[in-house]
């Protein structure tokens, strides 16, 4: 900036966006009155026209002065600014001229001009629209107005169609470190000030090349060099620091975002790279996952939505004595367990659970005298995710019925009579992760052969030899 601008000038200048709406409103009113007062019904309005025009012209002049002061603050696209400024001045002049023609002090010209004055008002309206549009572009950026416009309209306006959104990331490996993580971060935190129209600090951050080029303080991104990459150094300052970014009290970057930005710059800031190609260490996978909105720990509920269970079925289950409840209020999935009163399946009819088979995902029937014949019912609850059948007289003959529980992840069979043969049947449960077999007939040899086929399943045998 060549001139040292006093704070007062900029302070007053920042009232421009406020003051500018006065001439817009008043001159629009003048134009409306001028155009409708040609009709006989509204002729009564005509005498107010010169007063309104004068008011509009004066407020336009004030807005021009404030706008000029604001422009001294810099940081605006100079070409747009030039046209905005001169269109605004022209509009002020036109409105003064119209005032002069309408006022009674110019009776000589009245004959010709009064007949054709509506042309003057049309010109004024066009100038208001043009100046206002340029002003909006200066403040919000030229893409603001049509950012969400339908594509045909954008093409008509000479813009490229909206960029196709990046495909939804479902696994970490398929994400692109720049395009899916870092760029959206810069988009949300930096681009509202560092775009083609605003260019604070002469810095653009809309493309990768612009980051390398940097602004008046130097490059924003130096590949592999954290110390000299201003885009990192500025965001890690304390929020009270003058140079802290994002400025103007906008929310800063959180810990995950900082770490990921740091990791990207340190790893040679690739403009595009699949995460599958790198080995992420320590806590980094978790941070990437959180930024991508992937849950860090596998959710224990199925992702698919399910219809709400029929309340009459739920009531019938509760009447039997089962404890049935929604796991979380927003989801219709249910958990079921035996009551704490000591009642077992000997007294409760397990068949009432069948109509709820789509909803039940967690079930605890431990110490419930569950026999082999009950397993044929349980085997139909094929959404089950966690199943606790500990301390029940279950044998291999019953386990056969469970081969359809393909979603089962946690299966507790401790204290049952399952043996190696029953264990073999469980090999087919693809999702199974933990299997509890303490105090069963399963032998070491049985486990060894099981592990050969399913090394992914964690078998918990217990610390204590109970037969001792």
């Amino acid at each position, binding site marked *: 900036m060549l001139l040292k601008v006093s704070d007062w000038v900029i302070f007053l200048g920042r009232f421009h966006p406020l003051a500018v709406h006065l001439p817009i409103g008043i001159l629009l009113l003048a134009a409306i009155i001028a155009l409708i007062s040609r009709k006989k019904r509204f002729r009564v309005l005509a005498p107010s026209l010169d007063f309104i025009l004068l008011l509009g012209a004066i407020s336009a002049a004030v807005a021009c002065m404030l706008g000029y002061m604001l422009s001294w603050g810099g940081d605006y696209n100079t070409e747009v600014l030039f046209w905005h400024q001169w269109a605004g001045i022209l509009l002020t002049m036109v409105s003064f001229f119209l005032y002069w023609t309408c006022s009674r002090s110019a009776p000589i010209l009245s004959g010709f001009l009064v007949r054709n004055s509506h042309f003057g008002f049309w010109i004024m309206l066009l100038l208001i629209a043009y100046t206002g549009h340029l002003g909006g572009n200066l403040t919000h950026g030229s893409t603001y107005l049509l950012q969400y416009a339908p594509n045909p309209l954008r093409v008509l306006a000479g813009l490229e169609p909206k960029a196709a959104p990046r495909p939804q990331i479902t696994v970490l490996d398929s994400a692109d470190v720049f395009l899916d993580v870092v760029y959206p971060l810069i988009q949300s935190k930096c681009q509202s000030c560092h775009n083609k129209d605003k260019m604070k600090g002469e810095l653009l951050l809309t493309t990768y090349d612009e980051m390398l080029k940097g602004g008046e303080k130097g490059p924003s991104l130096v590949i592999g060099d954290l110390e000299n990459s201003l885009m990192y150094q500025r965001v890690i300052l304390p929020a009270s620091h003058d140079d802290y970014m994002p400025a103007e009290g906008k929310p800063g970057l959180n*810990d995950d975002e900082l770490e990921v930005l740091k990791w990207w710059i340190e790893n040679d800031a690739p403009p595009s790279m699949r995460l599958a190609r790198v080995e992420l260490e320590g*806590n980094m996978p*978790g941070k990437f996952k*959180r930024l991508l909105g992937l849950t*860090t*720990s596998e*959710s*224990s*509920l199925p992702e698919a939505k399910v219809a709400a269970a029929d309340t009459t079925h739920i009531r019938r289950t509760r009447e039997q004595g089962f*404890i049935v*409840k929604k*796991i*979380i*209020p927003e*989801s219709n999935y249910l958990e079921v367990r035996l009551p*704490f*009163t000591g009642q077992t399946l000997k007294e409760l009819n397990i068949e009432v659970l069948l109509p709820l088979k789509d909803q039940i995902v967690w079930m605890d029937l431990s110490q419930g005298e569950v026999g082999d014949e009950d397993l044929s019912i349980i085997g139909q609850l094929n959404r089950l995710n966690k199943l*606790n059948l*500990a301390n029940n007289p279950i044998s291999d003959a019953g386990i056969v019925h469970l081969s359809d529980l393909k979603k089962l992840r*946690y299966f*507790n069979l*401790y204290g049952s009579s399952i043996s190696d043969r029953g264990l073999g049947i469980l090999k087919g449960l693809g999702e199974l992760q*933990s299997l*509890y077999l*303490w105090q069963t007939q399963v032998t070491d040899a049985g486990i060894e052969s099981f592990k050969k086929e399913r090394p992914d399943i964690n078998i*918990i*045998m*217990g*610390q*204590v*030899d*109970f037969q*001792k």
Partner: protein
Amino acid sequence: MNIVEEAIFRRAAYNSRRHFLKKCTSGLGALALGSLMGCEKALLSGAKDEKSGAGFVKGLPHFAPKAKNVIFLHMAGGPSHLELFDFKPELQKLDGQDTPKSLMEGKNFAFLKGTPKLLGPRSNFSRVGDSGAHVSDYLPNFTNVIDEVTLLKAMHTDEFNHAPAQLLMQTGNARLGSPSLGSWTIYGLGSENENLPGFVVLTSGGGSISAGKSAWGSGFLPTVHQGVQCRSKGEPVLFLSNPNKIDDHLRKRSIDIINEINRKEYENVADPEILSRISQYELAFKMQATVPDVMNIQDEPAYIHEMYGTDPGESSFANNCLLARRLVEKGVRFVQLYDNRWDTHGVGEGNGVGEGMKRSCEAIDKPMTALIQDLKQRGLLDETLVIWGGEFGRTPMMEARTGVGYDGRDHHLEAFTMWMAGAGVKKGFSYGETDEIGYYGIKDRVHVHDLHATILHQLGFDHEKLTYEFQGRNFRLTDVHGKVIHDILA
């Protein structure tokens, strides 16, 4: 009399009896409307009072819980991290040297003054388990389960005295009057088993902890959510059994009548404390049958007693650990254990971090190891969160009042170690680091509020949304602090 006074006087003179009666109509109407609507804000605020049949607050939990139960092993007094998990060979080299002045400047200690001497670790460390974590020879059994736990080695707190630090650890606030972690838990999730309290407290180690019963109080939450202390020796809950010559039937009838009277009183005055009283009478009656049953560890097989090192009929940490497992099996949400023997100032024999602390460790090493193993083999560790730790750590400096050879350490708030296990917490993981002498956390520090946020997260709560309106604003366990430590979650 100036003109203003005169105006006021004139206006007052106009207030006739007629005016008074006229104003009464609207004024009394407003009063009546107020009492019709009830002074409680229930009608306006909603959610917290709309309890469904199962005793749940609407809208909770926020997401599917990883942990259904919590067992919090609180080592009251503050065990030394420097003798247990935080291996500092550098401190050993500096043993007996003066502490640099710069380290002491501007710091607050409970008892340290002048220039104390540095005190090297009094235990021997070795790397154990697949994770290779350092554990001292004070905890030989615990090394067997080190691959089940996550060590938080750079914990820190705000308070250096027992009572406020214990309150901060248990209620998220160093001052009295806030609900404890267990109370928040059952406020949010309800009790699983209607015949047992949802929040049970067991103590060992003698005496009562500095923070007293406030550490398991319900604060401003309804009093039904407070912890119920059970004794592991003698009758588990005092005055629970029937008095002489009163049988169950008579007892039941008298409780029914008392509750009926209380209900009438509630209809009159609408004090929510009366509802707490009614439900406590009901719970107490149900507990007559269930509590002696669940608290009786005699029916456990010999190998379980051997595993925990229990001593039936006595009061011990081992018994409490076994009870904790039994309570969790019966659907008790939150079991809080306090073991009160960890204030190792070294002011007397057996009170330092040498032989004294070693003996204390013997009392907890086997039981807490057994607790993890036993929960695991029963498939309960998957949904039970076990937390171990004190309210703060101990200084790397020797306490001034320490007698010769007693090796005492002062209270230390800048760094201490805790561990967590089960319910979706990483296995065999270590989080955080302290400096060369274990004075200050230098990496991945975890504040007590962060710990609370993480515990609530595993229970299915967003700690910023689990709130209770009190004195005109919403209160949280973590107040305005706390970050979930996602890095320790599997």
